[in-house]
């Protein structure tokens, strides 16, 4: 009769069983250990980002009015281009809509589009990069050539053309914008993932795994993927910051989302440019500040994480040393 299997708890304590949870904790351990300025940066960035996400989720509750609302419940029209007041803390714009509400709803648009575009870009770029980097050969060379060409090209031009062509086909909505943005960022994800996969493959531990006879699927799944995944949060965060700027740019040029469908910061600023000549500052200032704040928050978060987790430039905290006096050499 075979001996019953030894339960894990009975095993010698020196045998450590790796756990999934430990992976997350280990990855983000440097964040907990960070002190001083690097830590502050991460938390400030996270705080700002969280605030906008909350605004996005609770927009209908938080915003005083609907983003396209130009009159009160009684049917009375708002004053056009009214300066900030009690009823309209950020004023109204040329369409008589409330600026503050548009700013709040704008965060919902921004977060929606960015998340979508991130998902699209990752869905294509990540697997392509993994496969290309692992298997190399002709496929890899061809993909790299195509992707590199796209990266070198001005991203906004690509986004504009794609957005325009898509809008002819499926209209000007959130999906169109997200797709246009994801097209510009997919080559970037592809390249980052691919390069990382290649450098991980050179690592001795992957070579050792191969020597032990691990299948490609295991190597990709356990070693390469996990290693690459560690970098994704930082890259995605910084990319999200860029994507918001791209969305605003599309909106500014008029290739963004249909104004009736959603409020968008870039579009609002475009309308505000004409106001600048008349000295009307509130229609452009608040949407612009919203963009600056959200992008800064995301950048701080991404850069802060990178600073804290990147072992090369991570600064180990220095503690002051107090040296006690030496004991005398000879006994009295």
């Amino acid at each position: 009769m075979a001996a019953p299997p030894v339960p894990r708890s009975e095993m010698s304590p020196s045998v450590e069983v790796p756990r999934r949870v430990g992976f997350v904790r280990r990855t983000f351990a440097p964040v907990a250990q960070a002190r001083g300025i690097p830590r502050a940066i991460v938390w400030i960035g996270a705080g700002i980002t969280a605030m906008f996400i909350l605004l996005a989720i609770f927009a209908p509750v938080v915003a005083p009015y609907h983003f396209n609302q130009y009159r009160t419940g009684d049917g009375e029209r708002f004053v056009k281009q009214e300066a900030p007041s009690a009823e309209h803390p950020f004023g109204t714009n040329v369409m008589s809509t409330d600026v503050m509400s548009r700013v709040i709803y704008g965060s919902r648009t921004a977060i929606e589009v960015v998340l979508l575009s991130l998902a699209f870009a990752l869905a294509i770029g990540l697997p392509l990069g993994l496969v290309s980097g692992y298997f190399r050969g002709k496929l890899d060379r061809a993909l790299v050539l195509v992707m590199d060409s796209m990266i070198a090209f001005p991203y906004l031009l690509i986004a504009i053309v794609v957005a325009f062509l898509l809008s002819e086909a499926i209209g000007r909505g959130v999906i169109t914008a997200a797709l246009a943005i994801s097209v510009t960022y997919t080559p970037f994800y592809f390249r980052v993932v691919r390069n990382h996969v290649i450098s991980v493959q050179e690592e001795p531990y992957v070579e050792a795994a191969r020597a032990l006879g691990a299948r490609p699927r295991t190597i990709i799944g356990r070693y390469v993927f996990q290693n690459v995944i560690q970098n994704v949060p930082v890259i995605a965060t910084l990319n999200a910051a860029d994507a918001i700027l791209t969305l605003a740019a599309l909106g500014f040029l008029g290739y963004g989302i249909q104004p009736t469908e959603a409020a968008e910061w870039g579009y609002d600023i475009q309308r505000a440019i004409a106001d600048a000549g008349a000295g009307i500052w509130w229609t452009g200032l608040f949407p612009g500040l919203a963009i600056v704040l959200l992008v800064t928050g995301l950048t701080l978060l991404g850069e802060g994480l990178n600073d804290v987790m990147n072992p090369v430039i991570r600064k180990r905290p220095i503690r002051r040393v107090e040296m006690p006096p030496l004991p005398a050499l000879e006994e009295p």
Partner: protein
Amino acid sequence: MIPSDPILSVRRMRVWYGTERGPVRAVDDVSFEIRTGETLGLVGESGCGKSTLGRGLMGLLPEGAVVDGSVRFQGQELVGQPRKVLRSMRGPQIGMIFQEPMTRLNPLMRIEDHFLETLRTHEPDLSQDEARKRSLEALGRMGIPPTRFRQYPHEFSGGMRQRIMIALGLVLQPKLVIADEPTTSLDVLVEAQILGILADLKANFDTALLLITHNLGIVAESCDRVAVMYAGKIVEQAETHELFRSPAHPYTRELLASIISLHTTGLRSIPGAPPDLTDPPPGCRFHPRCPDAMLVCRDRDPLPTRPEPSREVRCWLHGPDRVIPEGGRRPLEREGVALADEA
């Protein structure tokens, strides 16, 4: 033996770093001397503090490190000197050779630029021609032809880069050279060449050399005297042939026994691992791993003794007896060596 005053005299030197877990006592009460033209080998395992010691002598420690004790070079006290003074001594008085030659040269500067920079720093009135002549001389002694003077570092192999580094370290003819694992990253043939060059230094220029290494073979080959370092302390110092013939400290003994040679029939290693320098064991730092440990070893740090005039040991096996308390010489009972954490 070269009868002369010591060119370097180190007394009770300590180098501690501050970290979040407490101070790292990398060098903890170390004393030794080097005489003119003498080669002293400093041996120890990784993490024993020997590299820190080498850098500490020159004042090349990172932020947050504190130095205590006395380091006298040619009679002049170095500890506590302003940075400017130390800087001016690096090159003409004390030279340093590092471990990884591949990354020690600025990739954007030609070899010529490296040399001119060094010479101009310490002898600003030197003419271009004179500086070039001396550089080519130093390189020539290392076997680097003048035609390669204007090349870039990436055009040289590892062994050649190390020779260039040595030439750079010697071009100002310092009296003392500190070599920190100069051959560790090089293959055996190149290693032999480099050791030959270092031996020539002594023969031709009377340069004193502190050779820091973990390789006992090099020590046996090139050094006049040896200092064995463990966990921040020097446990034994002696003349090379005497140390190898009859090691006094148990650690030295075990180190020598673990060397693999053509006569080796079974592998021998020292159980356990070097201690964590932020929290070293009480008493003698080697006692948890020492086969000859006694009760007193756990309680008190051994005092330096001289069993012979040219040898110094820190081990209770060698006394001083009057200091060891009653019953202290009884063997230490150990519960079995636990799997230690990595230091």
